């Protein structure tokens, strides 16, 4: 029997997860090949921060070595970029001019860093923080006493700042919004976080718009809109990501912010699927690990001939900065009908905020002490009625289970 050919574009966390799920659900059904633009086999992108900080080596974050691909009969093409899809012929073309036919195609192209639209952003020494190559580039620039400016006080920017600080650099974080990690944190938790970062020698400048990057042959500093100048030997731009959809768009697939997929992870072409950060489901692109895994599962089920539909769940985030416990899950924008329960322990730098709506937990921020994160996350995901435990909800699992 001739096996169907399954091509996977993207050897990142979504692509490899989708392959694993397919192997589990439809063993032997597909002839699988995977294309990765990076020169490495699969590694855990979320471990890049510890790698930057010197807490992990690259070989420790590799999740699937070449032997694994071999053992599972998967053709791995590293350092190979897919440049075009000919949907009529069902072939893809790679950067080195080769063509590969497919019966099913998975797009797992992920995201690319959002560019900083200011003068000087092309200067040498201005970097992004997205892949292992970026980390290696940054590490080449680090030296004791050198100065780094990280533009963007979100999850990734802060992890970059921490990593560079750990490498002995002087680090300043420049953030456009009034407080750090505004998508995950409220003002109080953010100020605790800021204090903690400052205590570790990381400067934080909030409400600061970057007007330009100075330097001629090499970056020399960051110019803020209010006139301040921050000297820098290295600038890391971490102001967000956007789905990498160039390939899909070129191929004429329906795209919006991401590659539009239905609940079965199918694109507008029934032979082509998408999963991970590049996929847009129900108008939303997801950037975290849990939904990515869920999509991979659904996609594999579809490829196995099962009927499955993706239903996004609330997501949780942890900041991967050693010694800073930060957990954020669900929704805590201030909607009508939301009720806050807040716990603060400024001396120990601990903070909790729960957001309830109609008696159900919809959001949680834990700072300083996050061991109950999973408990709250479960409650958010299950949508359980918390009325009976409201008095003790903020205190977490131990007391809620005694209630």
């Amino acid at each position, binding site marked *: 029997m001739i096996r169907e050919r399954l091509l996977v574009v993207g050897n990142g966390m979504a692509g490899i997860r989708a392959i694993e799920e397919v192997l589990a659900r439809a063993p032997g059904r597909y002839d699988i090949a995977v294309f990765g633009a990076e020169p490495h086999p699969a590694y855990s992108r979320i471990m890049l921060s510890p790698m930057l900080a010197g807490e992990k080596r690259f070989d420790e974050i590799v999740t699937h070595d070449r032997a694994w691909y071999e053992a599972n009969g998967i053709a791995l093409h590293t350092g190979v970029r897919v440049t075009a899809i000919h949907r009529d012929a069902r072939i893809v073309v790679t950067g080195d001019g080769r063509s590969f036919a497919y019966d099913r195609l998975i797009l797992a192209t992920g995201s690319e860093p959002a560019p900083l639209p200011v003068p000087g952003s092309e200067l040498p020494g201005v970097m992004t923080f997205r892949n292992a190559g970026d980390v290696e580039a940054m590490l080449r620039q680090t030296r004791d006493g050198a100065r780094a400016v990280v533009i963007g006080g979100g999850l990734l920017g802060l992890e970059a700042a921490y990593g560079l600080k750990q490498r002995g650099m002087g680090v300043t974080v420049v953030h456009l919004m009034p407080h750090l990690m505004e998508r995950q944190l409220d003002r109080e938790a953010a100020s605790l976080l800021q204090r903690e970062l400052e205590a570790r020698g990381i400067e934080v400048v909030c409400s600061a718009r970057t007007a330009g990057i100075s330097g001629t042959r090499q970056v020399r500093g960051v110019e803020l809109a209010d006139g301040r100048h921050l000297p820098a030997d290295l600038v890391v731009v971490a102001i967000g990501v956007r789905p990498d959809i160039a390939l899909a768009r070129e191929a004429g697939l329906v795209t919006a912010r991401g590659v539009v997929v239905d609940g079965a992870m199918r694109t507008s072409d029934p032979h082509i699927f998408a999963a991970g950060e590049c996929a847009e489901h129900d108008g939303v692109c997801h950037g975290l690990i849990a939904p990515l895994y869920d999509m991979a599962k659904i996609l594999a089920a579809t490829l196995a001939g099962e009927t499955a539909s993706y239903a996004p769940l609330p997501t949780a985030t942890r900041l991967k900065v050693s010694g800073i416990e930060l957990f954020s899950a669900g929704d805590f924008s201030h909607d009508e009908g939301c*009720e*806050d*329960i*807040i*716990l*603060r*322990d*400024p*001396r*120990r730098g*601990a903070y*909790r905020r729960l957001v309830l709506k109609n008696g159900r937990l919809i959001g949680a921020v834990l700072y300083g*002490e996050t061991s109950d994160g999973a408990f709250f996350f479960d409650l958010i995901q299950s949508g359980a009625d918390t009325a009976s435990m*409201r*008095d*003790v909800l*903020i*205190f*977490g699992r*131990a*007391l809620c289970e*005694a209630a």
Partner: protein
Amino acid sequence: MVDGEPADWNTALDLVARRFNETIAAHGPDSVAFYVSGQLLTEDYYVANKLMKGFIGSANIDTNSRLCMASSVAGHTRAFGEDIVPCCYEDLDEADLVVLVGSNAAWCHPILFRRLTDARERRGTKIVAIDPRRTATAADADLFLQLNPGTDVELFNGLLANLAGTPSLDSDYIDQFTTGFHETLEQARTDAPDIRTIAEICGLRQDDVRTFFELFAKTERTVTIYSQGVNQSSRGTDKVNAIINCHLATGRIGRPGTGPFSFTGQPNAMGGREVGGLSNQLAAHMDFTPENIDRVRRFWGAPRVAGRPGLKAVDLFSAVGEKRIKAIWVMGTNPAASLPDGNSVRMALKNCDFVVVSDCVADTDTGRLADVLLPAAGWGEKDGTVTNSERRISRQRAFMPLPQEAQPDWWIVTEIARRMGFADAFAYRRPSEIFREHAALSTFENNDSRVFDLGGLAGFDDRQYDLLPPIQWPVPIGEQSGKARIFADRKFPTPDGRARFVATPYRGPANATDDSAPLVLNTGRMRDQWHTMTRTGEVPRLMSQAPEPLLDIHPSDAARFGIADGGIAEISSSWGRAIARVRHTTDQKPGQAFLPMHWTDNLSARGTPGRVVNPACDAVSGQPELKHTPARVTPLNIRWEGVLLSHVRFRPRGLTHWSRSAVTGGYAYRLAGEEPIGEGILLGLSLMKERKDALDIHDKRRGIFRAASFDAGGVLTECLLVAPPGELPDTAWLAELFGSGSPVPAADRLLVLAARPVAASAGEGRIVCSCFGVGETRIARAIGDGARDTCALGRLLRCGTNCGSCLPELRDLISREAGHIPATPFDSAPGGKDPLACTI
């Protein structure tokens, strides 16, 4: 302290002596006054009385015994010719019937009550309680008569009239040893023609009245105990005489197991009465007859002995308010909080030219109004004598050194007397010298005219005084053994040697309820507290039973006035108002409210009952009617409540309601206000001393706010909880944690604000047994584990095995937790098992 500034003794004493002398010189002896205390030792009392009545020349020395024993003193004097308690405590062992009138002995005299219930174990003594409230004593009685307030005279008139028709009437005794029986019986019959009338006036069931009368008539060995429910009444003296009348009519007096027995309220109320510390006494059981005045003048070598009675407490403070009295010295008592019409009393002291307060407690409601505050020794630091309810004089020996600059009261008085120019008459160097003089005066030209005679002790040297064993007076010259019972010889210290029946026409309380004041406000003691809580209020274990001012009302009244159980209400009268938490209880009859007597401005925003209580007094004894004030109750619109645990002792300002109670390691403040809860949280936070680094939680929609501070070692140092009314959690566990001083593990730090342990079964709970610190939670567990009587609980936990005042509550807990009633029902064989009656 002089004018709030520290001063040395010489400066303070000179100032007091000079100001008193100047005032007397300018305005006469009656322009000054002393207000003293039943907690002074006899020696203190003696020198204070001597200074005022013999050397200043006024009788304006009165005592807080006026609020306590004056009606008994007056009743005894009317009946016997002298203030004599004929009984002794052994009579409780010997009686077959003990009637407690207006006495919650189970709480107020727990040792004696134990003695009584022990006797019941042995001989089946019947106990009858007569009280408008279902007290712990009532709950333990064989028969409880919950009479209408102030109707005791009607009941005992009825009893007398009823006894007259029974063989129990001792006609021989009446004929030979008494006078006035027939007029008195006539009066009684007029008031109480039949059981139905009595029952109606007293609000009792006819059957109960009949049962009581029959029991009294048929039981030869009957003791009638009476206390503040009788005394603190505008008809107090008549109540005392109505009771004594029944004992005289049956000849049940002066014999084992019989007699009218006044239980005193204070440790040395009796000693004060001996020296003449009441303004209507002169000295040593002598009144103001010309012969007595002359006799005392000669004995003291006094320049100007007071020639007439002085002002009694309520009138005395009115005189201060009217500026007739311009200088007053308050010793060891807290009239600003304890007297009726408290607003007027506070105003009087505030506006008085010169107020001296000597006390062993620095911060009292009265002390705050003082120009000069003198540090007096506390009881454990003092040396002298006290006399108890059975006339037993006991040496009190210091077991603590004098702290800092404190001095005993006798020393302070003596020093002032010397500086006023009376050095020769106040040359005392030690209490024994005073005692000898006191004993000598009691026997001076006595010739059996006064029963009170300590002649046998007057010659004691210092060593004999030091070693004096407890002894019951009289101890005339030539005797050294004392006397258990008086009137066994049927001789009374009246001019004709006969006891006197006193006709006591029944009249209701001075002020009646009406539409604007439909409730009767009663006041009284809590189980573990003393007077204005200046000392017991500092003891966490004692405060735990009732840590805040509670107004008890019947649920039907609560419904009528719209007041929820646990809500905060104002109780007000024509004289003033107080604020307390409301407790619904069927222990109160409908139409009556009860407020503990103890709360002061020091301990609460407005929990002091004295402001509400009417200043009506008994016409004979001058004792105020503290237990009957027409009042109304209105709910407050409380929108938030809080609890603050703090190391700091202070008086919060600007709050509608607060009260403070001592807890281990600090104080618990209960707070409440009418502001929106957001403001309440800010008010609560403003009271926190360490709020900057506090851990807090806030559930905004529900208005739940909690904050806690820890020291560097992780020990909880301060804690605030704010919630909508009725939604505060039980803080017992938090208070335990606060008091333990143990550091909270970092992992559990956040859990502190949950106000409860993770394991629900841990903790002591509210303390029930104060002696051994045994709490409700632990007791309930023990009952759950099979302890079915107080005996078993005592064996397991020791609760109830010391003073026993928690035994009624332990029995309640057993019946509640186990559905099993361990009480002793009327007419059953004695069988209630109490820990001291069983083997532990």
